[in-house]
């Protein structure tokens, strides 16, 4: 037997203190198999050891929350016996090393998390961050990630309906690929992972186990360096056909009542799924690896336990139901095997070729995993009102801004995703939120993903708040009531006090906003160690929000629809240029304070706007975010080519007014009579409101003087991405 040396411990990503702790828990030294199991279960990726203490502070409850964090995904009640199940998860490290497979398996993994709980996936979103456009790897990574997401999602027949993309040099060495899956189930048919009871068969189904992805979770818990390319063998390979079979077969099995508990095999594969099921059910699990369907010959216990081969599931069945389950998997031509049994010992016992290869108390793997209150320092938030050149012409800046890498149309990306399969997509990519009908009803779910990393870098607390506030705004803007969110916390190395400070402030900001906006976090994922050669990414706590439209026929979209509508601005405009797109793209500087978030105003303005849409009084609405007011007006003009003539009698400073990124604002457009009423109602409710002008023509006209054609803006907005990617081919 291999002797466990300090070098082997270090190779497994465990500290000497952690190794001592393992010895204490076992009462002896672990063998190599056990060490491997501990290394993945105690990895940052699986144990959340740096963040767990802080994640507890997030609000996770509401009357409509059926299942909060801790299961494969969160569940909310959306009325009429329908449940919405969703989660967002990162696949950052593998996607940088092997973009197609990394992104594809990220999509597959998050889909499994959702259908494991009994839901049919109905929509996919993704939040992507790449390095600066000029970086030599960026195009290759964009092309690979996008085709990986499309390759997997398109085959699954689940529409990919939206997302967000940023480019920034802080991601040059660590791209972020966060995928979100939303599914639908019935509230009385939700499946959990607690393996309760002893003597029940543990069954394996799906694809065979191979040697791929061994130690993927450990890789995802470490920084990169120049040799990271050598980690390619730790990236898993996806097979969407197998996943499609697995989805249909799993849902078919779920239609019976044979399942006690079920869990997909994701990070750390068989190890993690069996330990988590035993842990949640308070039982033990004994596995005989001889029965595991294997793709390669002579696999060792160590390899089988740590393999991250994709498209596999583990379930505990009621005794005697194995044959019924096997019939279903045979129909779908998937492997099925009884590989173990639940016990009352509380231990995870692994047998292989007649020998006990591992025997560990399950609580040692889960509850006893270290929780670190890592030291932190809070960097002072960036401050100040940045200077700018007052003489720059506004409309030339608008044209340039609309073609900036972070602002240009993402059509090049989303045309590679099937966004209309399942025939329930009511709002396609390009709006504030995607809207997907609840099949067979008039209800619909609105879905968005948001975070503004440059704000988070300047001020992680306000940035965390802003991510949540913007997610709610995007939902309100289509007329959906924000219900709950999932978070994907992407940060650098938490062992650096300054990074840990960002993590804590980001979580605090998210928590504060979620409490104020009645928007609990019901699932999530942390991705730390996003660093290369000691350089960390901008803090990027992505928020995936879900809202409900009770009557989707009243949904609003961003497009101006009629000539002569009054353009109304809701919310206060101070002209905040700090950390704005304008400052970065036009002045070439990233500085100043990030915009402050007034959560009370967010709530009040959001409720006001949403009630107008729900009442069928407003069908045109857009939230104000990146780029500010004039960019939002242009984005509303682009879809149908209907322009607008806008202005304000007394603007002290034009540039901050048109391009400032003050929060809590919406634009709506409505016919004159309705608009007059809306303005009066807003004033009566002490909501800041301003009439900016009227829709019409095919130009954006400001102050009756300067004008620019919508077609010219469209060319700039649509042109950047295809031009940029041309060089890839």
């Amino acid at each position, binding site marked *: 037997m291999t002797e466990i040396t300090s070098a082997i411990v270090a190779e497994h990503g465990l500290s000497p203190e952690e190794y001592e702790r393992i010895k204490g828990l076992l009462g002896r030294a672990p063998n190599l198999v056990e060490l491997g199991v501990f290394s993945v279960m105690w990895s940052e990726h699986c144990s959340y050891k740096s963040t767990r203490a802080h994640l507890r502070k997030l609000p996770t409850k509401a009357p409509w929350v059926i299942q909060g964090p801790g299961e494969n995904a969160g569940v909310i009640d959306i009325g009429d016996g329908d449940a919405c199940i969703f989660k967002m998860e990162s696949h950052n490290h593998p996607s940088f090393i092997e973009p197609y497979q990394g992104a594809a398996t990220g999509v597959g993994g998050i889909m499994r998390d959702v259908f494991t709980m009994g839901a049919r996936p109905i929509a996919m979103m993704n939040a992507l961050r790449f390095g600066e456009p000029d970086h030599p790897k960026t195009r290759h990574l964009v092309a690979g990630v996008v085709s990986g997401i499309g390759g997997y999602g*398109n085959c699954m027949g689940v529409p990919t309906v939206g997302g967000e993309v940023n480019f920034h040099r802080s991601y040059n060495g660590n791209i972020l690929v966060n995928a979100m899956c939303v599914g639908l189930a019935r509230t009385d048919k939700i499946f959990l992972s607690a393996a309760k009871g002893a003597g029940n068969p543990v069954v394996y189904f799906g694809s065979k186990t191979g040697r791929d992805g061994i130690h993927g979770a450990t890789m995802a818990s470490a920084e990169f360096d120049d040799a990271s390319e050598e980690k390619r063998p730790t990236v898993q390979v996806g097979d969407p*056909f197998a996943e*499609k*079979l697995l989805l*249909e077969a799993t849902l078919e099995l779920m239609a019976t009542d044979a399942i006690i508990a079920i869990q997909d095999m994701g990070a750390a594969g068989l190890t993690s799924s069996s330990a988590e099921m035993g842990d949640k059910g308070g039982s033990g699990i004994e596995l005989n690896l001889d029965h595991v369907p294997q793709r390669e010959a002579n696999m060792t216990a160590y390899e089988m336990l740590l393999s991250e081969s994709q498209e596999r599931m583990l379930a505990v069945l009621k005794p005697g139901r194995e044959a019924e389950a096997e019939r279903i998997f045979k129909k779908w031509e998937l492997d099925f095997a009884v590989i173990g049994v639940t016990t009352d010992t509380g231990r995870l016992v692994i047998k292989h070729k007649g020998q006990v290869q591992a025997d560990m108390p399950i609580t040692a793997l889960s509850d006893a995993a270290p929780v670190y209150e890592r030291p932190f320092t809070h960097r002072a938030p960036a401050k100040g009102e940045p200077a700018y050149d007052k003489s720059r012409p506004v409309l030339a800046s608008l044209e340039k801004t609309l073609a900036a890498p972070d602002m240009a149309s993402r059509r090049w990306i989303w045309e590679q*995703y099937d966004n*209309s399969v399942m*025939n329930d997509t009511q709002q396609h990519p390009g709006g504030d939120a995607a809207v997907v009908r609840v099949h067979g009803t008039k209800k619909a779910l609105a879905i968005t993903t948001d975070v503004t990393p440059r704000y988070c870098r300047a001020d992680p607390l306000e940035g965390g708040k802003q991510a949540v506030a913007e997610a709610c705004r995007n939902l309100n803007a289509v007329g959906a009531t924000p219900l709950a969110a999932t978070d994907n916390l992407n940060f650098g190395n938490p062992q650096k006090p300054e990074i840990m400070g960002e993590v804590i402030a980001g979580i605090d900001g998210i928590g504060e906003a979620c409490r104020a906006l009645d928007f609990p976090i019901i699932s999530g994922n942390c991705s730390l160690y996003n660093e290369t050669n000691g350089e960390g990414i901008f803090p990027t706590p992505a928020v995936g929000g879900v809202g409900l439209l009770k009557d*989707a026929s009243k949904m609003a979209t961003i497009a101006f629809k009629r000539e002569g509508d009054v353009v109304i601005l809701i919310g206060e405009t101070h002209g905040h240029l700090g950390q704005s797109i304008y400052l970065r793209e036009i002045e070439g500087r990233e500085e100043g304070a990030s915009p402050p978030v007034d959560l009370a105003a967010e709530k009040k303005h959001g409720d006001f706007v949403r009630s107008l849409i729900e009442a069928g009084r407003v069908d045109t609405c857009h939230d104000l975010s990146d780029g500010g007011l004039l960019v939002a007006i242009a984005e509303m003009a682009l879809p149908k080519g209907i322009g607008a003539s806008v202005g304000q009698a007394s603007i002290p400073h034009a540039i901050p007014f048109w391009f400032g990124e003050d929060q809590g604002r919406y634009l709506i457009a409505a016919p004159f009579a309705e608009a007059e009423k809306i303005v009066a109602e807003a004033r009566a409710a002490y909501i800041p409101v301003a009439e900016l002008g009227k829709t019409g023509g095919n130009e954006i006209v400001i102050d009756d003087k300067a004008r620019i054609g919508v077609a010219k803006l469209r060319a700039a907005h649509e042109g950047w991405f295809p031009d940029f990617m041309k060089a890839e081919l």
Partner: protein
Amino acid sequence: MKSAVIVFPASNCDRDAKVALEEMTGQTPHMVWHQETELPDVDLVIIPGGFSYGDYLRCGAMASQSPVMRAVRTHADKGGAVLGICNGFQVLTESHLLPGALMRNAGLKFVCKPVALTVEESQSAFTRGYENGQTVTFPIAHGEGNYVADDETLDRLEGEGRVVFRYQANPNGSARDIAGILSEKRNVLGLMPHPERVVDPATGGSDGRALFKSLIEALS
């Protein structure tokens, strides 16, 4: 009109086809599993979009060898109507129920977007509800929709009025902008765009309704 929808393991527009048929005919179609060797007594068979057996080989190549496709061929030989949409079109060319082949898109990428089509031929059971020259908008969603055939075949298709839909702005490199074609006996239609995704104005439009109405009129 009685109808059936073929279900391969990775069909993924089977439900969309079923919902469209329910909406348009008021009747639920038979959903026929790929391992079946016989079809129920129906007027119309739809081969839906998706990835049939994963399509790691040429799209539709494995599906063309499936048990159910023998039954579909028998149905077609007897003059029964067959509608192949997207992957269904690929399966039909691989099965030689339609001439030509569907290659990788000229742009080498999957493309999903609404496209404008010209109805070239309203003299068919599938298109009698449209007018010649009419523009309709159906979405496409495919990576391999680039229709190719030799010039002789293309000339013949054109000459016999079997080119039914043509792209107004070619999205995939298809020869002569062809989006959909009829079989020689005009009872089999294959097309890459998705008419079943445009039967509901709330989700994309209603230009596909006339295709189903045409079939109901012709086959009932």
